């Protein structure tokens, strides 16, 4: 109970700071919509090819925007050495990890609420009944991205050149989650067959569970070293 309360307080703090600073979300919105427009006008995707190409392009935009958010994830803790204050307090380190994952997830879901319909319109995807399935894949992929991203954001917290180091370390490990999300979305968009996409869904769920558990277990070591 105390763990959940601490997580809730830390999440409240992060959301309040983001509301007041408006640094991450605005940059992510701007960059995300800009990339979708660039892809739309530069690539001129034909309607019959849209199902094959659109998921990859969408996730390219989401990964870039998400990485922007990850760069800022521990910014408040870097200022005034507030991370020290958190480490000094008698809270479970996993509460810090979980609150950051939830905060990052909130930002990404808000971004996706704007980007997904825009992407649907720009790429002439008329099959609106498939949007919930695509959104489900997007959500599971986002959870994987946020979990691993938070862990690596903490890992590179005090590293020199972390802006370069973070994507270099994160993206290779993100390949399974990106691949599973894109392939699952592609199957849904092309065939509309949810059963056919199930192996990718299982892979995504497995990835999310494994890395969330690993994150909770190793975060203490990551953040204190």
């Amino acid at each position, binding site marked *: 109970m105390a763990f959940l309360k*601490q997580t809730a307080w830390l999440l409240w703090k992060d959301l309040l700071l983001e509301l*007041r600073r408006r640094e991450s979300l605005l940059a992510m919105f701007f960059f995300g919509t800009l990339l979708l427009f660039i892809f739309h006008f530069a690539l001129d995707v034909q309607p019959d090819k849209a199902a094959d190409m659109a998921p990859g392009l969408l996730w390219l935009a989401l990964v870039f925007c998400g990485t922007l958010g990850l760069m800022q994830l521990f910014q408040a803790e870097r*200022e005034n050495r*507030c991370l*020290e204050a958190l480490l*000094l307090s008698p809270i479970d380190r996993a509460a810090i990890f979980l609150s950051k994952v939830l905060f990052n997830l909130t930002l990404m879901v808000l971004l996706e609420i704007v980007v997904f319909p825009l992407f649907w319109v720009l790429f002439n995807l008329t099959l609106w009944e498939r949007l919930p399935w695509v959104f489900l894949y997007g959500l599971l992929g986002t959870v994987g991205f946020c979990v691993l991203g938070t862990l690596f954001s903490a890992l590179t917290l005090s590293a020199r050149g972390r802006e370069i180091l973070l994507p270099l370390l994160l993206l290779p490990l993100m390949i399974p989650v990106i691949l599973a999300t894109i392939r699952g979305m592609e199957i849904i968009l092309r065939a509309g067959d949810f059963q056919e996409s199930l192996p990718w869904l299982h892979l995504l769920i497995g990835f999310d569970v494994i890395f969330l558990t690993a994150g909770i277990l190793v975060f203490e070591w990551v953040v204190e070293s």
Partner: protein
Amino acid sequence: MNLPYPAIIVEHLLYSFYSRREKILYVEVRRLSKAYGFSWALKDINLELHAGECVALLGPNGAGKTTLLKLLCGLLQPTTGEIHIDGAKLRQGPARLEPTIGFLSPNDHLYDKLTAQENLRLFLALYNREKEHGELETALAAAGLADWSREYVASLSSGMRCRLSIAKWLLLEPKLLLVDEPYGVLDGSGVDFLEAYLKNARDRGGVVVMATHHVARVAAFCSRAVILRRGRMIFDEAKRAPWESFHRAVGEFLPRGETWPS
């Protein structure tokens, strides 16, 4: 466990009696060393801190004062050696989750874009010491920040931030309080507020360790002095009058022309 009122009085009297007669060991540091890369920031520090002690931690720049404070609160891992707080090895077992150690760093450890009151509420919640709104206001008023309680920390001066940090630890009541150079940013009434708080913490049986360069001030206030030089402890004595050994030891890093008032 809530004790009945007479039992609390008896416990308090016994504690006061024994803490005066024989000092209760609260912190024990054994052969503590810390290296950054290939250079030793601290080497072979042995220290015992007792309940009710106020220790001045002195030394020139780079002596290892802040490193020692950070080791004592567990923010740094020692390269060798051990620290025991209240009988339990620091950073092992449940002791590390006990809200017993405070680190007062004047300008740090506060969120810029939270108000003074929100900062207090957040840390009180994290320490599981949630207080009524009135108690927060009282602490802020005691710190001289009653009119700034709804201001962002970013808009406060460094002296006001230090007062807010003191108010934070005043509410959190740690048993071991580590203070890192507080005098530089505080005005006269701020120093009075700090020293009144530290005196109160010490009288309640807490341990205060204060790293500073304001020798005359802490020499008057603290009950013991520890001097570090190049990571080694060169002086550790309880205060006495006259205190010529301290005068000699501290003389070499005082500004030219300044002497310690005997």
